[in-house]
């Protein structure tokens, strides 16, 4: 089998800087293919449980998530000389129970894979927040889009630590936009023209 070339799609993505400039989140539409450049924070199951425990105690979160993008990922360890190991998205619904509370604190976007609950979708519309899907199972390729990685909190949780990533041209699909549209639903109901 010959080595495949990177798909042309990767050069045709709409470039988006993160954290988002004013008006950018509102301009993105369900189904848009984008590439992210800038900084984001990460978290998955334990990260969220620990953040919720801090909030329950009335403490501050280790980072201010207002205006930020939170990426659901538990990276594999970096080999010597690598920035990070494989770092593709984990399934997002497990974070649904925690997400509205973070949106209340100003979190502007989340990124993972798979559908969000109705409660999260409604909270996103209320807060003008969006949800993105990264390409699941492409963790080796996506690691190439992460140029810096630093543990910010919960280091003892290993892959479930809260990282800060600097990303360059990290590909994603807009699933839920600020207008309440859900791209997975649009595909399922045939409301989106085949791409």
């Amino acid at each position, binding site marked *: *089998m010959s*080595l*495949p*070339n*990177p*798909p*042309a*799609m*990767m050069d045709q993505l709409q470039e988006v800087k993160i954290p988002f400039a004013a008006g950018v989140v509102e301009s993105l539409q369900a189904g848009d*293919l984008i590439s992210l450049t800038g900084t984001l924070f990460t978290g998955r*199951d*334990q990260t969220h*449980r620990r953040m919720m425990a801090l909030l329950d105690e009335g403490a501050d979160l280790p980072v201010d998530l207002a205006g930020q993008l939170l990426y659901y*990922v*538990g*990276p*594999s*360890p*970096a*080999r010597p000389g*690598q920035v990070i*190991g*494989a*770092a*593709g998205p*984990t*399934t997002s*619904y497990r974070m649904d129970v925690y997400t509205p509370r973070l949106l209340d604190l100003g979190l502007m976007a989340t990124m993972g*894979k*798979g*559908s969000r609950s109705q409660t999260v979708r409604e909270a996103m519309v209320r807060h003008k927040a969006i949800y993105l*899907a990264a*390409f*699941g*199972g*492409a*963790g*080796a*390729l*996506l*690691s*190439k889009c992460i140029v810096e990685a630093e543990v910010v909190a919960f280091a003892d*949780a*290993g*892959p*479930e630590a809260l990282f800060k990533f600097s990303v360059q041209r990290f*590909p994603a*699909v807009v699933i839920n936009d600020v207008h309440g549209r859900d*791209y*997975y639903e649009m*595909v*399922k109901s*045939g409301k*989106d023209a*085949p*791409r």
Partner: protein
Amino acid sequence: MREIEAALITEAVKKITMEAGVRLEPDILEGLVSARDSETSGLAKNILELLLVNADIAAREKIPVCQDTGVAVVFIELGQDVHINGDLGEAIQQGIQAGYQEGYLRKSVCDPITRVNTGTNTPAVIHIELVPGEQIRIIVLPKGCGSENMSGLTMLPPSSGISGMKDFVVRQVVNAGPNPCPPLLIGVGMGGTFEKAALLAKKALIRPLGKHHSRPDVAALEEEILTRINEQGQGVQGLGGNNTALAVHIDLFPSHIASLPVAVNIQCHAHRHKEIVL
């Protein structure tokens, strides 16, 4: 009687664990290529291409194909004329631990109550079967849980029959939607008992991708269910197209006259599996 040192088993398990994490087997690569070639959606075709690039980067740079390097499921077919010098279970666990550590694979196993990570990716889930002969066949299946979580089991009344079974499998995949990282491999265990059906479904995953069951009626069912799943249009990553699943593998076992257990084990496209025979 053949004697095998436990240390040899540890070494073999470590080796195939490290390889499985970063290198997709030819059957799954061919499955992704043929999905790409048959794909009707432009976006899905691009994503399938991207998954092939991902597999290439992973193998060349020894980066895991997917960061979820799984809970290690280990199938052992142990020849009854083999004598192992040492503790077989311990030898396997040590091989898993060393493979995850030295292969820079993610440790994802935790206590189910405290959720504290064991730090070693052990214990692995081990299934041992005694077979004739004096060889040991070891298969490591690092099972990612985005897909594992979408699996299910039902105890159908026999009156539901084949059509009940087909509906359950298709519904399980449709309800999973984009969560388990389609395109998928669907393992189905039909018959036996509660636990037997689940194990059949899991074991069906390690059959070479798309190789049909030897019974023609079962092979026809595999084909029919695959077609039905792919007609739903959820497609690659739930973003549309005609490749929601790459294959359906069904395994059977006779069941009680009152019973029709059906288990569906969902596997993602990053279907890592590796075997070695000692």
